[in-house]
């Protein structure tokens, strides 16, 4: 039976993607294609020390022997890596020291995106690194943070200025051989964010990176490394947008987190890359490897992600719980609409004693999209007293979408405990009618149900971002009929 509200549920369209504009800029872009020469050039342009080039070339060698993974529940034509621009940067001088040096066109772009890179935004307690195509174009509050020993800069800069930290930690959590995309990233990464929090320091600001892909045909290969030393804390948030092009664009990032004794990293993502149009044309291919290592005892890594964009999402932010009593958390909302496909989840690897992990995953599928949770909980023999709690909920909107849950549980030793709960629900017409009978409009009723469904995850987002996330969900599921 087709009623008005059921036909509305079938036709919840994303509101027109409002970050789909392009900024006209002169850029220095490499020609398309991947080769050893391209890698040499990236390294040279960045004036990198020898060890970095070696790292890249080693990764490239490994990459050449690897093949694209095919186990995910994703369906897309093979990516032609020779058809990608591996380096693209705005031509004008990059303002590393003061915002006045930043190209006004770029500042305008961030203004349009609503990203606070002006110093006046300091009051809001957020420091921002802005990555535009392949390079970091602005970084706020660096000096103030440096005074208390916090390093917050682009990774290119860190490679120059803190090579000892880079040498020690890069590739220590995600080895270049980990998978096809990490090998590629390790060979060609162009920029990203670096954060180091010294011992006994609670970072006073919310640190944040905004990633913007601007140039047609360019890939973004960013590399982020965050180290939180003993007894320290940092909360970090990243946001991602891209123009609406008809062609697919590749985003293959690597993020590594390290927590030492008694320290904590809270890492939040609001991913809103261009998702392609309603027929599945265009959109970002998002192949990302994110992993944190709780190296120290009593340390904690918490991932919160709100994945709403990209044509393809392939992403499993994970925790290696090495230190005794360490804690890993994964809170995820993944929303797919139209022809979007997401295969996302986490891995919790329990190695240390009494390690704990929590996984809360909320998948929402609408349109003709496909949404898969894939997660691994692994407890080794040594991990005595390890505990995991997993909750995977899927919500289907309309009847042409798909939700799948693929949990892998590997437990050795008899003192370890794993709990897994899963549910699948639909927004029912009866629920919508109930809310409407209380005077609430159909659109608000849908938004209310979705927001209730996501509450356990959104409450993990810092400050005002929870409200923003709610709003983003509504924009992605607008009723195009009424």
């Amino acid at each position, binding site marked *: *039976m*087709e*009623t*008005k*509200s*059921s036909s509305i549920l079938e036709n919840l369209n994303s509101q027109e993607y409002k970050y789909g504009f392009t900024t006209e800029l002169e850029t220095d872009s490499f020609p398309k294609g991947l080769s050893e020469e391209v890698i040499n050039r990236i390294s040279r342009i960045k004036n990198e020390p020898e060890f970095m080039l070696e790292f890249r070339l080693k990764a490239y060698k490994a990459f050449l022997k690897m093949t694209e993974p095919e186990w995910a529940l994703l369906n897309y034509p093979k990516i032609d890596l020779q058809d990608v621009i591996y380096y693209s940067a705005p031509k004008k001088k990059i303002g590393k020291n003061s915002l006045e040096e930043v190209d006004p066109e770029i500042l305008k772009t961030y203004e349009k995106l609503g990203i606070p890179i002006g110093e006046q935004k300091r009051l809001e307690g957020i420091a921002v690194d802005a990555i535009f195509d392949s390079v970091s174009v602005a970084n706020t509050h660096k000096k103030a943070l440096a005074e208390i020993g916090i390093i917050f800069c682009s990774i290119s800069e860190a490679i120059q200025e803190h090579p000892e930290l880079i040498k020690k930690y890069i590739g220590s959590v995600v080895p270049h051989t980990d998978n096809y995309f990490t090998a590629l990233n390790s060979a060609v990464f162009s920029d990203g964010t670096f954060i180091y929090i010294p011992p006994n320091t609670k970072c006073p600001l919310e640190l944040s990176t905004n990633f913007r892909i601007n140039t047609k045909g360019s890939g973004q290969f960013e590399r982020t490394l965050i180290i939180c030393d003993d007894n320290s804390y940092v909360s970090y948030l990243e946001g991602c947008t891209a123009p609406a092009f008809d062609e697919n664009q590749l985003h293959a990032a690597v993020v590594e987190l390290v927590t030492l004794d008694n320290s904590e990293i809270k890492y939040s993502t609001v991913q809103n890359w261009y998702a392609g149009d309603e027929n599945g044309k265009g959109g970002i291919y998002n192949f990302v490897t994110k992993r944190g290592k709780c190296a120290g005892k009593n340390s904690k890594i918490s991932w919160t992600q709100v994945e709403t964009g990209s044509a393809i999402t392939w992403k499993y932010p994970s925790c290696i719980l090495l230190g005794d009593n360490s804690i890993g958390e994964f809170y995820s909302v993944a929303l797919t609409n139209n022809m979007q496909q997401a295969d996302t989840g986490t891995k919790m690897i329990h190695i240390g004693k009494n390690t704990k992990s929590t996984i809360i995953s909320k998948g929402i599928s609408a349109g003709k999209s496909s949404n898969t949770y894939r997660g691994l909980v692994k407890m080794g023999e040594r991990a005595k007293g390890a505990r995991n709690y997993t909750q995977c909920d899927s919500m289907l909107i309309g009847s042409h979408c798909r939700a799948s849950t693929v949990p892998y549980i590997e437990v050795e030793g008899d003192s370890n405990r794993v709990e897994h709960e899963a549910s699948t*629900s639909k927004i*029912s*017409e*009866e*629920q919508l*009618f*109930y*809310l*409407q*009978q*209380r*005077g*609430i*409009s*159909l659109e*608000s009723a849908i938004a*209310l*149900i979705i*927001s*209730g*469904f*996501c*509450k*356990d995850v959104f409450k993990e987002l810092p400050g005002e971002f929870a409200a923003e996330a709610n709003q983003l969900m509504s924009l992605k599921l607008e009723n195009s009929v009424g």
Partner: protein
Amino acid sequence: MTETILEVKNLEANLEDGDKILKGLNLTIKAGEVHAIMGPNGSGKSTLSKILSGHPAYKVSSGSMNFLGRDLNELEANERANLGLFLAFQYPLEIAGVNNLEFLRMAYNSKQKYHGLEEADPLDFDDLVESKLEILSMKNDFLNRNLNEGFSGGEKKKNEILQMLILEPKLVVLDEIDSGLDIDALKAVANGINAYKNTGNGVLMITHYQRLLDYVVPDQVHVLSEGRIVLSGKADLALELEKKGYDILNAKLS
């Protein structure tokens, strides 16, 4: 002259693509009146409540429904609600993760907004809700739970009545509000209904049993059978039905 709140004339209705369920129903409710509708299972009682409130699965094929001078058939469910038509559900829906108090305020403010009135801020609204909780002997912690999630049958019904008291509608349709209630809950619900009703509004109770009518005395009792009201009377009609069952229909109608 007393205001007419609801006037239903020759109403015929069916499930979309389904058989006719209501077959020429007439009903008039005036301000200050309490009506009860009884009738055998499948006679169309719940359908009537859903049609009045605008459930999307039902369709009116002929006849009219006039509510405070407006043609209900031309209004969306949420507009009907905002105009003051309230349905207390037989099976209230659970909405996970949605805070009961926030939902109540959202519903209240939807109505305020619809009528161009000021929306209530959380503090003012708290005061309003507290005063209503007392009527139903409900505890405060009730408000911090998720909307109907994990509520017992009785709690769900009380929550419906709480919503009714807060929204102050002009007409309430209570669809088997008494089913599944123990004596205490029944009394609390009846208290709520009695606190609500006044000379300016109307009540339509759909019920199978006399026991609710002991506490909320109807001005008129109607018997619905095969999609039409076949018998109407005063409160004593319900007592008679309770005693003799629907067999009396045959006797009275033949």
